[in-house]
């Protein structure tokens, strides 16, 4: 990847956003409608293969460039980023841990967007604590039979295939040794219903119920039971970088809107950007965005170098999502009633930002991961 190529890629992404996302984002979001036409356009421009290796039909982009794409798209409408983020986490897990046969069978169709999907980890009673899942897969001849329920699953309605985290052996100690990932193409034995949310609307977040759902044993990722948690945790490093990049996007969008508004809105005879109270907010917002972006870039570089990036990704996710939350509230204070109005984009950023502090492992958990890793890397 040359600088020139990256610059051309980001330029095309900017045009895609300006032409195909921004004009429709507000209305689709308000209607909680899935952006079907945007998805078609994303297939055309190749976004569903962004991080998939070229030998499997993808672009093979590194996490650094990928994070820049996610940031840009999220600044326009975070839900659109979610559609390919969740898909690419699934693709990354298949690419890193799948058998060659699984890679040949699935990755080209993932990259083209013909098959789109996500990962299903969270359950009604457990999310961050994944070892507590209860969805069960039992081997029966050449199939696994899945029973259980998954919750808050992105792409579960319009997606075609989901990597489902299951227990193949509920009796192991530690529990993760009995956990596996199965690639489940949607079909009999699965019922999905859409969930209503505060923000992150338009994207099809659903609950999935599996009742005697049969999946060919060939779809066990990596072909070996007991590896599921390990596989998904590696995939979640990319997931966290990507959530962090979304945070930078939202925080930047809040800053951009505030910076523009503060120069035209007047109080007490002058633009509000000339009041120190507003200047301090703008300075803090801009500094937060810049710092968050650098943390994301650092985490992405470590990830691209092939090293474990859980601490760096955790720091980026923690910091960037908190900046997004803070900037969305500060932007609303700067905009006053206009910020609170559903006619403008700001209240959307304000509703979208909290997801980033909760999803992909809560920020509380990120701190624990960071601390554990700190201690591990610095033994006395």
């Amino acid at each position, binding site marked *: 990847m040359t600088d020139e190529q990256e610059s*051309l890629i980001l330029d*095309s992404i900017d045009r895609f956003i300006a032409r195909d996302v921004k004009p429709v984002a507000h209305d689709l979001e308000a209607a909680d409608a899935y952006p079907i036409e945007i998805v078609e356009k994303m297939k055309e421009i190749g976004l569903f293969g962004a991080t998939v290796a070229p030998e499997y039909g993808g672009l093979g982009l590194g996490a650094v460039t990928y994070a820049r794409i996610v940031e840009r798209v999220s600044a326009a409408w975070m839900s659109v980023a979610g559609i390919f983020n969740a898909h690419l986490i699934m693709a990354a897990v298949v690419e890193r841990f799948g058998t060659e046969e699984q890679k040949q069978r699935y990755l080209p169709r993932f990259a083209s967007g013909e098959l789109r999907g996500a990962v299903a980890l969270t359950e009604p009673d457990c999310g961050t604590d994944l070892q507590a899942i209860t969805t069960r897969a039992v081997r029966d001849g050449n199939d696994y039979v899945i029973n259980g329920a998954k919750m808050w699953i992105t792409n579960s309605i319009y997606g075609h295939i989901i990597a489902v985290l299951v227990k193949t052996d509920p009796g192991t100690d530690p529990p993760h040794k009995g956990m596996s990932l199965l690639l489940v193409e949607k079909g009999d034995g699965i019922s999905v219903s859409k969930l209503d949310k505060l923000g992150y609307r338009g994207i099809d977040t659903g609950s999935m119920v599996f009742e005697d759902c049969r999946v060919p044993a060939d779809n066990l990722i990596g072909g070996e039971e007991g590896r599921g948690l390990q596989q998904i945790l590696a995939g979640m490093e990319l997931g966290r970088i990507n959530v962090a990049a979304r945070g930078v996007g939202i925080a930047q969008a809040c800053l951009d809107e505030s910076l523009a508004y503060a120069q035209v809105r007047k109080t007490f005879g002058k633009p509000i950007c000339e009041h120190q109270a507003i200047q301090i907010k703008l300075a803090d917002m801009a500094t937060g965005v810049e710092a968050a972006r650098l943390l994301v870039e650092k985490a992405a570089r470590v990830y691209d170098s092939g090293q474990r990036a859980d601490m760096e990704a955790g720091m980026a996710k923690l910091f960037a999502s908190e900046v997004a939350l803070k900037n969305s509230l500060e932007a609303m204070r700067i905009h006053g009633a206009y910020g609170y109005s559903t006619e403008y984009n700001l209240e959307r950023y304000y509703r979208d930002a909290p997801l980033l502090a909760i999803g992909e492992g809560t920020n509380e958990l990120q701190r624990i991961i960071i601390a554990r890793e700190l201690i591990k890397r610095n033994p006395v």
Partner: protein
Amino acid sequence: MKILVSVKRVIDANVKVRVKADRTGVETANVKMSMNPFDEIAVEEAIRLAEDGKAAEIVVVSAGPEKCSETIRTALAMGADRGIHVTCEDALEPLAVAKILKAIVDRETPDIVIAGKQAIDDDCNQTGQMLAGLLGWPQGTFVSKLEIGDGEVQVTREVDGGLETLALELPCVVTTDLRLNEPRYASLPNIMRAKKKPIDIVTPEELGVDIAPRLTTLKIEEPPKREAGVKLETAAELIDKLANEAGVI
């Protein structure tokens, strides 16, 4: 049929342009640059002709500093076949560009040259016309519709009185207006593939072209700031001001 498209690297249309402190030009350091929008339309038109099976090869040419290769690469990612970069660090006047393009036309012998009607930075609107003059070729400027016929092209031009349709014998020069088409943006796989498409590099000296400027820029200034208007209470006041201050009634 072979099509030559000329493209210029300009300050992006969305950038708020600032004049340099010494008033010798506009600020281009750390400013986003893009392909001139009218040239994008020219590239798009060429690609559509190729997609319709009417053009066999699209060659894109740009003259300017090293970074112009990125503009050529953008055209290659959109769908052009190969590029020619005429490297030159100095600013080029339209006549110099027209001479460079003529030299390239002599080498490449295209059937049609498509250029933007003007560049959005200097708004000269001269290069296409000068090139046609230098070549002795027919020209169709400000084209909003283009159809390839047998040995000729029909172009529709937007003129003051309406739409004018001309038939031009090939080879010819065409410059594009805004309404000719809506250019595509390159897909990411095509951007990756464009890396393998060739860009030839030549200098004006190698082409034997004299690019010495014929004009001297005295100074560049910001347009005057628009002053705030006044609110008038009555129609009588307005009449009075129009009559006595503006002197228009």
